[in-house]
């Protein structure tokens, strides 16, 4: 499997085609929207956060396979998890993307992005939803990014 085939492997294409958690979240109290200025795509992430836990997570927007799959996997993994867990996963995923030490077992489907670092111009797509989540949490005073 070459890098390209790895990037566009089945699990990623499937998440993009049938994303988990696509749609708004009724009781969302953290909403973050981000635009990728290069393609004009916008993604909005909705989270209902309560007691330091992401009770429900969802997203809307259109985008490329990479951004949609990454958003879908994010929702799949973080739904119902504590903010601390979420933060850890985000760090773990960033490490994967930056080719630093990471724990692939914790990444679940996100591990499919192992070759994303080979496509540096697409890293932004792969992390867009996460940054949008961070934007939303920032308003609640949670520092998620950085």
């Amino acid at each position, binding site marked *: 499997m070459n890098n*390209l085939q790895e990037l*566009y492997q089945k699990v990623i*294409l499937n998440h993009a085609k049938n994303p988990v958690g696509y749609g708004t979240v009724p009781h969302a109290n953290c909403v973050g929207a981000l635009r990728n200025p290069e*393609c*004009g795509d916008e993604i909005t992430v909705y989270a209902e956060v309560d007691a330091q836990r992401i009770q429900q997570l969802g997203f809307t927007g*259109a985008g*490329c396979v990479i951004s949609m799959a990454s958003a879908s996997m994010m929702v799949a993994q973080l739904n119902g998890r504590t903010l601390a867990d979420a933060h850890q996963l985000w760090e773990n995923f960033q490490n994967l993307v930056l080719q630093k030490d990471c724990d692939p077992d914790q990444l679940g489907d996100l591990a499919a992005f192992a070759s994303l670092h080979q496509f540096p111009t*697409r890293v932004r797509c792969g992390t867009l939803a996460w940054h949008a989540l961070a934007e939303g949490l920032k308003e609640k005073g949670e520092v998620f990014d950085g």
Partner: protein
Amino acid sequence: MTDYQGLTYLDNAATTPMPEEVLAVIDEYYRFNKVNVHRGIYQLAGRVTSAYEAVREQIAQWLHAPKPESVVFTSGTTDALNQVAFGYAQPRLHPGDEIIVSVLEHHSNLVPWQRVAAQTGARLRMVGMDSQGNLDYAQLAELINTHTKVVALTMVSNVLGTVVDVAKVAQLVHQYDGILVVDAAQAAAHLPIDVTAMDADFLSFSGHKMFGPTGIGVLYGKLARLEEMEPVRFGGEMVDLVTPTSATFQPLPIRLEAGTPNVAGVLGLGAAVKYLEKQDFAAIQKHEARLMQFLLTELQEVPEVKIYGPLDYQQRVGVVSFNVGKHHAHDVATILDASGVAVRAGHLCAEPLMQALNVSSVMRASFTFENQVADLQRLVDAVEQGGRILS
């Protein structure tokens, strides 16, 4: 010519490759003659200044401008268009005045006008396109009236490749005493430009999109218009007598060129114009037409490909934008790149046009007369493969 080392470079509308002879001129300046212009008494400064001013004359001739003073060096098209917007239009527009741009414009010929409209109270109006992506001349004729002070149009769309008949527009604009500003950034490498025949009031282009260096461009203006224009930058070279509280300015064009200019850029631009001048333009245009015909024909054969703009190869120049089914342009572009073909993907700095086309992004293949059919064949093959990988 820039050697992309195996990559099939089809992003010429973003920036073109550069021939050896342009680089040679830049190198010679930096290697042996790196002095400042205009102010040196020593002979080397005089020689470089003469070479610099000779490029101005050369460009005036190339554009069929009556006088070299009509040619102002800028850092690029964006800089040039902003100078017209803020140096010419902004000081003379009032509430009730109207500015017309088209839906085809690059952001550089739109956002400055939005700002000028906001600052002056003038109204910004946007003319649309017909179903083929050509400027809607009928709508333009309706929009133009005695309030119209500025019509700012691209000569060639950087998304659709459609060509605006600027000469025809100029007639209309001038009937109402408005001025015509032409963005020739995408035209310069492809079409002959005759500012006198087209009767543009201002016209601009970038060196880096016509086989020249980065950081240099041209603002052509009718002398009367340039005289009316206020400088947007102040500093060395462009002033005459300066006291602690006042300054008088040099005559045109130096008045509009504050500070040390991009000397290497100007000399390189001169070499790029020379390179274009020595081409057989009739042959080039024939070759480009053949490339366009090939690309349009072959791309249409690829399943799911949707091409934007006219399908008649004679109606477009240098660029073809398209999408593949519902696949996102970024995904396809990544696959093309992995196959060794570089195209642009995104909104192409023309978001209003994307909105009019009802897409968020497209892929754009753009070529020059330096490209060959084989380059386009590689593109078509890669697009086919891309569709398969993503489905």
